[in-house]
């Protein structure tokens, strides 16, 4: 197992290198450059502007007047020294901005996942074990609603209607965890729940399907025949085998959702990585775009590794050499 882990970690290196090449070049190939935006912003002030002259002045000031491969080598060298560069607009360190924004999104996703699991597991299991009962129908309806209702719509409704009816809205003032842990968790509860709803619905359905399939297996019939209680049959014999595809789902969800929190962050005014990315894309802030993509790539690779290792834990037949 240890050699497997080391091999996987070493394999990450060429992957990350390839990703640096792709994110660096692709972000600069997006139509419309940061130079155009900076010139446009200056046009909103007063004064006569020679856009060509202004563009060249900015290009020089931002060291973008060297060939792109030189820019890439400079950036890569800095990255290898732990420096992701500075924002083209504010000059603030990209690393600093990522370290500020990532915990917000990670917390949102983890809480969303936890809430999704807390909702999905009991309902999914109940639905499977009480197939075709009223409870099963309600559970399946909840799952369908959770999957089909767009989370941005729910989030907007949660903001707008309580403010009209009850003169209440959730806190929009970001409370860092370090300054007030309880306040922070309470603030994240609602957005995390909304974020986790889609995942909850998918897990519910997957769990129900897998549980129904596993419960029909011979070894489960044997367990029933032995006179074991339902709780023992489900928790000790059935659940582990049910979880393998669910773990895959969770791994996929984690990997995509960290960068997919932008709408929830926007509506609930949470300063996470999603908002940072959107702003960076809008403003063509290449160092931030590259930095975020690189960090996300690393996270996805680590999540995949953890997911694979979890399989080995759940299923003793899975052995990594």
């Amino acid at each position: 197992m240890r050699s497997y882990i080391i091999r996987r970690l070493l394999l990450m290196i060429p992957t990350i290198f390839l990703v640096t090449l792709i994110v660096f070049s692709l972000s600069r190939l997006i139509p419309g450059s940061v130079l155009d935006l900076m010139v446009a912003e200056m046009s909103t002030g007063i004064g006569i502007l020679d856009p060509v002259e202004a563009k060249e002045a900015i290009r020089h000031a931002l060291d973008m007047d060297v060939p792109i491969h030189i820019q890439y080598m400079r950036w890569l060298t800095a990255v290898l020294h732990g420096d992701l560069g500075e924002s083209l607009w504010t000059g603030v360190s990209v690393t600093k901005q990522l370290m500020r924004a990532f915990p917000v999104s990670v917390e949102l996703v983890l809480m969303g996942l936890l809430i999704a699991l807390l909702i999905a597991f009991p309902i999914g299991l109940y639905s499977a074990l009480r197939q075709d009962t009223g409870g099963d129908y309600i559970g399946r309806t909840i799952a369908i609603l959770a999957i089909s209702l767009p989370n941005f719509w729910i989030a907007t409704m949660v903001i707008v209607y309580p403010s009209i009816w009850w003169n209440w809205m959730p806190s929009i003032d970001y409370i860092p965890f370090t300054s007030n842990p309880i306040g922070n968790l309470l603030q994240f509860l609602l957005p995390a729940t909304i974020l986790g709803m889609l995942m909850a619905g998918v897990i519910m359905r997957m769990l129900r399907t897998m549980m129904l399939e596993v419960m029909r297996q011979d070894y489960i019939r044997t367990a029933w025949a032995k006179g074991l209680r339902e709780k023992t049959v489900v928790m000790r014999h059935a659940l582990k085998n049910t979880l393998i595809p669910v773990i895959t789902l969770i791994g996929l969800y984690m990997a995509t959702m960290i960068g997919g929190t932008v709408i929830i962050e926007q509506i609930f005014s949470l300063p996470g990585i999603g908002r940072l990315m959107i702003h960076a894309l809008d403003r063509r802030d290449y160092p931030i775009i590259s930095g975020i993509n690189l960090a996300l790539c690393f996270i996805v690779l680590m999540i995949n590794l953890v997911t694979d290792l979890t399989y080995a834990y759940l299923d003793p037949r899975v052995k990594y050499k």
Partner: protein
Amino acid sequence: MKREGKILIFLIIFMMLSVLIWAGGKEEVQAGAAEEKIEEKEKEPQYGGTLTLGLRKDTSGFDQAYGTGFSAPNLHMTNECLTFGDWSRGPAGTDETKWGYPGRELTYMAPCLLESWEIPDRDHIILHVRQGVHFQNKPPVNGREMTADDVAFTINRQFTEPTAYLARVHKGWFKSAEVTDEWTVVVTGEDSARYPSIYTMAMVLGDEWIVPRDLIEHYGDIKDWRNANGTGPFSLVDYVAGSHMTFDRNPTYWGKDPVGPGKGNQLPYLDHVRMQVIEDSSTRIAAMRTAKVDWIYEVGWEDGEALLKQRPEIEYHRAQLRKWVGLFMRTDTKPFDDIRVRRALHMAVDLQGITDAYYGGNAVTLNFPIMNSEDWPEYKDSYVPLEELPESTRELFEYKPEKAKQLLAEAGYPDGFKTNVIGEKKDAALLSLFAGYFKDIGVDLEIKIKEPTVFKGIYNLNEHDQMIAPWLLSSHPYDFTELDPIHDMNCSIVDDPYINEKRAVLMAYENKENKALLDKYAKEVSLYSLDKAYVIQTPAPYQYRLWWPWLKNYNGELVVGMYNYYNFAQWVWIDQDMKKAMGY
């Protein structure tokens, strides 16, 4: 279905209905309670309280040398410029101006960090620096007095630092800023057609956020918010990127209330100002509705009216958005080099119909080249209302598709022609309206929607081949930058000798104080350019500024100075008793 399941479903439906019925009646109860509690009477300004502003965007940074001053609202709290708006000439005093828009006019400006200034000729400004003004008491500056050296240092930095706005746009004018004695700075430039003094001098006086020299020498820059230091009425005590900024009153601030019941009082009245960044418009309006913020602005007319219906106690100011979409036609290429074609297209569009149907009547049809806005009363003498336009100009704003077809035929296009317009996604619906109108006269308009950054690239360099539809910030009434041959906002590529000659008078440094002359020439250019139909303007929609009634001494101001957004915070106060009485 089992009995338990049926009961559960029934309970859920009953709860949902109960909630809906209960919530529907809540609003009236709240309004009634508020009315009983409010006791409206004139009061002396009170010290204390927190003003929370709901902003759409986070700050662009803490150092003017790394961007623009106008996009960094924190600077407008912690630092000051050499001049600012004369609060006593706004709605709080003589009401000569509304302080609703940024501008370059020095007429209504008051000395801020200056005792006075002189402009002996078009190449020099003499600045007499105010004494007794102190920076905030933080290391390394430690509350020392501001001197002429700080002023000169800031000006030189802004014109030489490659990343600074002034260095990129106005560097061609600037020569030097020198200290001639302890309290005097002489700024020297060189007036030219490309860098007219009238612009750069205004920027020096109104858009230089003075910083202490030793602060920059110690840290190198002010990228870190903790290092922010200035002479302003507030100091920055907390910043969470993308969320909020918190400011505390500066106890050593030099300013006094210039007008009203609190005249002579030490400013500011507020203990704290909080700038809450709320990017989503629904969230921002909900925050206003629930009084999580005390003030928001640039609220569209639909949202504004809905909010005022729900919360009639909220106060408001309504004025046109200073931006509007214009259809600019390249007058240096066919077919738009022919005035008949341009006039035909103008007449083919029912602008009043668009105002009524698309904007529900909540827009102003005539905004170009001069905007007649409630927020710009000082320029009403340069504006000609629609009903007073000469016949040949007024008919452009009347819906005359038959005459439009006739004009096209005279110009050699009896069957119309094909053309295109480059626009942004948010204007697709509006441009579709135009396409529909043009189709009726045989003009086939292809709408090319571009991603915003791509659009800006095309717009900056005027790379459109036919038409382009940017959102333009209405230029200052005396500038006509959209008609200036060397300005990038001139998307119609206008180079008209009559306009150029008149603009030369408007831009002349010697005429900057002669308002009667400026209004006369501005009116002439306005009438002339309207008749030439260089631009098909679209109605400028109304927008709201909204605030809760406990915000006192406030009448809808936005920019008290050139780019001093939100600096009204230093003159307003919070009626905390009223706020409590209203249940907040």
